């Protein structure tokens, strides 16, 4: 059973009811000051654990990069025990991750472009005033010797037509699907995500061992992910992938409009009543309709359901959900065969949140395209994220799609995607050509999320690897 009082929050269960967020990006200029900051957060019991008795008004979570650990003065043995990818940092892995051309680190936003972020403070709240007040309180705590890098990063659920939604900027309902983890009480309440496990080899899904996401517990294959030293620092910690992903909403909508006519020609009987061709094409690229209903269950029109308990066995050629659709790449479920044994080590917890204002269709863009998603993923080793990014998002081989990348999230310049036809309806196959890159990286890094005990150890300056 994972120790939810020691593990930080927003990992095993998301902050579904906190709709506003702010990310403070800090640099440690003196090791003492860095430790003093952590100590004051610990003393104030400010850092939110994964489980609480009373729902806090705001939440605060702490993550630290490799350079941050170094700036705190950790020893060489301790630093050297962290994974290679974490030591390098995300910027140096740009080529592996497809952060090239328009997404290369030279094009990133500040402070990511020229600075190294040491500490990431993640603040969530249910209202803007509560969020602002907590930000002020935290900023007041910052000692001289810990510098806040500018600009900080606001984020929050999109307001569309006057209502707060869980949609992201391309219009798709987001945060529907996350891993179903052993030992974690299910989220309660209406409209909560339906978590999905890994295939059990018998057509259903089983829970995923918590060690895939939290250090110190067995993961898939019955093993512990490599842990940094000392043990107290590592236990109940996790690794966080933080990526600021800018979304080209105008480009996405334009592409759909440009392709609509040609795509419509493949539909022998035309579209079902009330369904726009662009929406159908967008759904084919994503694997879900914009309301979150999966194509596998609702192949002809959206179904108003986010039922997440589906498999791909009944759709081997992708007639309903294309083999290269985004959700089928991000979580292939049973699509790769072998009872799920070749996909089970590659799951990620995702806690993304939008930034920037929603752009209504046919309105001028007053923000010059500065909107997107703060992609946040948790794993117990960065090889999990990097595998998904390199082998499933930026390559299609496992899905019989050759080098074709994810049409929505992939790194490509003139990408391609095959939308298989459907013998049942007579819809002919269609290939999307010259797909521009819709999502560009604008910043981010790899972070370590210590447990609360790990935080106390970091504050203490008593870390030794003997």
């Amino acid at each position: 059973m994972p120790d939810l009082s020691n593990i930080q929050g927003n990992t095993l269960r998301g902050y579904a009811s906190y709709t506003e967020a702010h990310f403070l990006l800090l640099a440690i200029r003196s090791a003492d000051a860095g430790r003093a900051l952590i100590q004051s957060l610990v003393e104030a019991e400010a850092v939110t654990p994964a489980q609480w008795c009373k729902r806090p008004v705001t939440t605060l979570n702490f993550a630290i990069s490799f350079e941050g650990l170094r700036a705190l003065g950790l020893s060489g043995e301790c630093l050297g025990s962290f994974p290679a990818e974490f030591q390098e940092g995300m910027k140096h892995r740009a080529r592996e991750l497809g952060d090239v051309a328009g997404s290369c680190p030279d094009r990133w936003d500040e402070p990511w472009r020229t600075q190294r972020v040491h500490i990431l403070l993640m603040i969530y709240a249910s209202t803007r005033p509560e969020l602002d007040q907590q930000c002020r309180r935290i900023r007041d705590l910052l000692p001289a010797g810990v510098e806040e890098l500018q600009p900080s990063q606001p984020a929050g659920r999109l307001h569309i037509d006057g209502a707060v939604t869980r949609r992201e900027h391309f219009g798709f309902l987001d945060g529907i699907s996350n891993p179903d983890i052993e030992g974690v009480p299910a989220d309660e309440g209406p409209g909560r995500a339906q978590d999905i496990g890994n295939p059990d080899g018998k057509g259903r899904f089983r829970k995923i061992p918590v060690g895939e996401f939290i250090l110190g517990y067995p993961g898939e294959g019955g093993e512990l992910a490599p842990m940094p030293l000392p043990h107290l620092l590592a236990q109940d910690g996790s690794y966080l992938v933080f990526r600021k992903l800018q979304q080209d909403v105008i480009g996405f909508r334009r592409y759909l409009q440009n392709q609509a006519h040609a795509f419509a020609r493949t539909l022998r009987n035309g579209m079902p009543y009330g369904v726009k061709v662009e929406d159908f094409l967008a759904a084919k690229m994503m694997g879900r309709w914009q309301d979150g209903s999966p194509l596998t269950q609702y192949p002809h029109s959206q179904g108003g359901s986010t039922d997440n308990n589906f498999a791909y066995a009944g759709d081997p050629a992708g007639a309903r959900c294309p083999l290269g659709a985004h959700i089928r790449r991000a979580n292939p479920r049973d699509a790769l065969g072998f009872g799920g044994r070749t996909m089970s080590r590659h799951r990620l917890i995702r806690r993304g949140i939008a930034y920037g204002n929603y752009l209504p269709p046919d309105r001028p863009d007053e923000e010059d395209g500065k909107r997107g998603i703060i992609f946040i993923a948790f794993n117990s080793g960065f090889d999990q994220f990097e595998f998904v990014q390199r082998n499933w998002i930026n390559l299609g081989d496992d899905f019989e799609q050759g080098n074709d990348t994810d049409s929505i999230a992939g790194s490509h310049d003139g990408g391609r995607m095959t939308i298989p036809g459907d013998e049942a309806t007579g819809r002919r196959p269609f290939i999307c050509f010259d797909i521009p890159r819709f999502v560009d990286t604008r910043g981010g890094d790899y972070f370590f999320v210590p447990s609360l005990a790990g935080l106390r150890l970091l504050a203490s300056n008593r870390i030794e690897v003997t």
Partner: protein
Amino acid sequence: MADRARNQHGSGKAVTFNVLTPMTRFGAFVVGLLLLFLDRVKRTQTTAKQLAFLPFVHWVIVKRDKFPRLDDSQPAEQLNYDYLFFLSTFNGPWGPYIEAFADVLYLPLDSVWFWSIGYPFARPVGPLKDYIHRNQVESDHSYSAYPGASVRDARAGIELRNAVQSFVKNASALSPDRFALEFDRLFMSVQNKVGTFGPTT
């Protein structure tokens, strides 16, 4: 890297992987029988092919007195062990492929490598990866005649060409309208075989 085939357009999808492991005489004898068995009984090979990332693999037992000696000036080897040479190619770096072996084919893997000195069993996979690091030899040169093609790419190309060839044979005499219908049918039958391929920069 010399273990990765490439061409002027970029890095290929053929990465050579060489692991040499020592065995006792008895171990080598047992492995010889096991490999003979695996050669005759195709079930493991079928599963390995379903994994779809092995274009060519050589398993070679090199007995301690069988290192080629061509000339008296070349001293005879005096070794304590026989060796199993495992010479494979993957579509990329070996980590995820070894995990797939450990998750799907651990029984044949363990049966064959159990007899190698120091082999830690396939699961958990961490010690197996350490074992491989210790016993791996990097290639000094790797070549593929189709570096931009993975196993699936090559298969899809062959199948697609066969389908097109068949189509041309049967449909070339059809009226244009019937041809167009048959073309649609052809496209549907090969729709998941037309992805782009090639070396990556």
